[in-house]
């Protein structure tokens, strides 16, 4: 079976820092996603990519950059971490077409001091 691996699992940063989160999938899925999950809120889409080197903005792209270096990997950069920010960043992937149910990784938990 396949797996989605997110690294790191926990990330503690400082205000103003640039932080990079990584995601790898071995399902050979075409579409990959980055979602942000805040306590008490639904998942919000930051960026998604339908193929290698493609990048599409989601509802929450401001303050983030992303890169689909190859089909199996999709990274997300927080360009300037905000003080007291705390959220879980979830990576997901789905087969071609994108309207199939995405499969999720376990998340990266970010805390900013």
């Amino acid at each position, binding site marked *: 079976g396949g797996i*989605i691996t997110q690294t790191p699992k926990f990330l503690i940063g400082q205000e103003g820092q640039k932080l990079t989160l990584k995601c790898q999938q071995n399902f050979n899925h075409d*579409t990959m*996603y980055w*979602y942000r999950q805040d306590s*008490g*809120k*639904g*998942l*919000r*889409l930051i960026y*998604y990519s*339908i193929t290698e080197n493609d990048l*599409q903005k*989601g509802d929450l792209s401001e303050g983030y950059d992303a890169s689909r270096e190859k089909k199996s990997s999709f990274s997300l950069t927080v360009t300037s971490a905000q003080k007291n920010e705390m959220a879980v960043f*979830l990576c*997901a992937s789905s087969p071609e*077409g*994108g*309207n*199939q*149910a*995405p*499969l*999720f*990784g*376990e*998340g990266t938990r970010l805390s900013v001091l």
Partner: protein
Amino acid sequence: SQLAEENLWALSVHEGESVTVNCSYKTSITALQWYRQKSGEGPAQLILIRSNEREKRNGRLRATLDTSSQSSSLSITATRCEDTAVYFCATGTQVVGQLTFGRGTRLQVYA
């Protein structure tokens, strides 16, 4: 406001009881998915129900979809403590990436 929304913030039941979580949505959809997220894990898909389906089952889980009222329900029979999790509905359209999640309903199953 959310385009997909579960109707209850949280609920609790005793092990063995049945429970239903409801969801309403605001857009035209091609499919609706129910996910479960246990503490410290990513969401895991439970059931995908397409817009031309009215009911879908998966073991102890049963999902319904009513496109006229733009609502869905997820029922769990004979609940177990390991069903304790947050349950999300998510709606999808034909557009890639347009998957909208509700805030989730927190279910606690007590022994």
